[in-house]
């Protein structure tokens, strides 16, 4: 795989909620924990020393339990929340030094957002909602109509443009939310638990839709979830957050194979690896010695590879995306990836 550029980067980011965050920050830097800080100073340690690189064209998934600081973290990327300390770099520039006008341009043109509760404008039609980013830039309805309709069609809402959001189901509303983000034509998309409010079946649909769109559009997506299955299904890069700190980050397969601490071990213990691990996280550049038995897509899971191989261990497949070969996968690496490992059982 080619080395991708870092699109968004977070450096030593701290966020403390309370009356005197600076004072509390000094205490945290001296080693005070989240619980102690809350006890002694009644300040909430939202985020501590976060360092994450988000690569261009990848889906970076930030996962953690409720209250671990995921929403706080993602809101630093477009400065809906201001940090107590640290840097947020977009295309190498520190956006914390930007003024209001610059931030508005960033939010309108290069960073769009999808919300857990959809957050559509209830008094505007679906079409107007989809065109919200363009309308905000000052475009008249007839100028954004085509764009908005195109993306509504693309997310499966053909002919629904004149409806109002409350006339649609939750799943369809979130499709509008995604169309709204896509229509802004931004290269970065922030998704805060975008599918968490949806029923499981619809959620799966939406995940597939997102992967499909991503294959085509190659956006830089930062996706928040509390669901490990979802995280593993979508992630190119997985960041696990606990109590406002990163406990482990890396390729999902890496994390599944080498959980860094018991907290993550517990998380990954009950996972059906064959279903969640995808070809793209197991495939290699190395061409197999023997015959290639077929073609698979990078988003196929290992379960489907095993089914394709009909149980034979000596099969290997070519991984193709958009008509180009992006790698190879053999059954040996598939089976290796399926075996869980414990932290204490490592060599």
């Amino acid at each position: 795989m080619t080395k991708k550029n870092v699109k968004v980067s977070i450096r030593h980011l701290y966020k403390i909620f309370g009356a005197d965050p600076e004072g509390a920050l000094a205490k945290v830097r001296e080693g005070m924990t989240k619980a102690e800080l809350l006890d002694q100073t009644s300040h909430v340690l939202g985020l501590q020393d976060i360092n994450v690189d988000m690569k261009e064209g990848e889906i970076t998934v930030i996962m953690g339990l409720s209250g671990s600081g995921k929403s706080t973290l993602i809101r630093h990327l477009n400065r809906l929340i201001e940090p107590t300390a640290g840097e947020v770099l977009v295309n190498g520039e520190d956006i914390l030094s930007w003024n209001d006008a610059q931030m508005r341009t960033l939010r309108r043109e290069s960073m769009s957002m999808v919300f857990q509760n959809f957050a559509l404008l209830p008094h505007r039609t679906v079409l107007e909602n989809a065109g919200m980013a363009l309308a905000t830039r000052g475009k008249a309805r007839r100028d954004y109509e085509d764009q908005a309709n195109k993306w509504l069609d693309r997310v499966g809402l053909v002919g629904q443009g004149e409806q109002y959001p409350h006339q649609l189901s939750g799943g369809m509303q979130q499709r509008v939310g995604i169309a709204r983000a896509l229509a802004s034509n931004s290269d970065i998309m922030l998704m805060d638990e975008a599918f968490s409010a949806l029923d499981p079946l619809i959620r799966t649909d939406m995940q597939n839709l997102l992967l499909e769109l991503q294959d085509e559009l190659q956006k830089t997506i930062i996706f928040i979830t509390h669901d490990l299955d979802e995280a593993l299904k979508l992630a190119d890069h997985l960041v696990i957050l606990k109590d406002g700190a990163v406990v482990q980050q890396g390729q999902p397969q890496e994390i599944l194979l080498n959980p860094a601490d018991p907290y993550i071990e517990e998380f990954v213990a009950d996972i059906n690896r064959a279903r969640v691990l995808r070809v793209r996280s197991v495939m290699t550049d190395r061409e197999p010695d023997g015959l290639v038995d077929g073609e698979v897509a990078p988003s196929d899971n290992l379960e489907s590879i095993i089914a394709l191989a009909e149980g034979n261990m000596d099969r290997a497949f070519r991984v193709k995306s958009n008509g180009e070969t992006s790698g190879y996968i053999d059954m040996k690496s598939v089976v290796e990836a399926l075996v869980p490992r414990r932290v204490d059982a490592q060599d």
Partner: protein
Amino acid sequence: MATYDGFFDTLGLRDWCGTQDSGAPMSMADLLAKSSGADADTSLRDFPFPSLDALHEACSAIPQSRDLTLGLETGFLGIRDALRVVVDPLTQPLSWALENMLWVMTETPWWAMIPILLVITWMVGRSWKVVGFVALVLAGLAFVDHYEVAMQTLAIIFVCAFICVLLGVPIGIAMSRSDRLQGVLTPVLDMLQTLPPFVYLIPLIFLFSVTEPKLYGIAVILYAIVPVVRLTNLGIRLVNPDVIEAADAFGMTKSQKLFGVQIPLALPNIMAGVNQTIMMSLAMVVIASMVSAPGLGILVLRGIRNLELGVGLIAGLGIVVLAIALDRVTKASLARIDASQTSR
């Protein structure tokens, strides 16, 4: 001999109090005591509260409470001219608007005015039922020869309610944006709402001549502006914060957010405030007829003053049906707004 003499003596304040000047006018209590022949040697049961009057009896340096009211009055009269210089030109457009509206609504012939009002009703409410009801009310009032006074009442309400909205909505918006302003204005609004309307009629009478329409115009506006301010503030504060966050996340400016998101979403609440404002101006217009506001209120007042039961009752009934009609029309428009953006 007054009850609190001893008090001032023991404190050694006798000199400060000055000598007992028996030339000062006697208080009513003294007179009563004298005439009943009782001595100032009061029993414990009649022991007076240390009020201004009681203390004044013992020490003339302390003012009587009559001086307090007198002082307020002279104080107010002192600043009256200065106040007039500022307030008069500011409120002149109000007089002008009221005079013209009254003229337009009473001078236009009924066969033009009633259809115009019905068209306005249709545009606001979009409901044939409401238009029919309003037609019935207007026809009924005209039939019992109350057409002209009803038009006068409506003219005053239209002008005052319009000005209430014109001033109240921006004030409400400003309040929703600043907690400090909300803290300052809330007690003022509370006071405006709880003060008996007669109370702020009093300084207004001193300030303007009774023949000027702005006198009752201001009284009506002060009384009726409260709900539209409150509900605008509340409506904007109640807008779903998720939606506001989305507006921010897509880079809306403050004014895009205000006019594109906050006001449209607060509109049902703002309209509820307008409805209440109109109802309250109707209530106040009756009281304001004591200071020369024309309309149905005058007839109600006549009923009370001259004990003309029939006149008072018919006029009162006229006010009730006008109130119901105004309520129906504004509620119909509220329902229309709600229907276009339900379930939030």
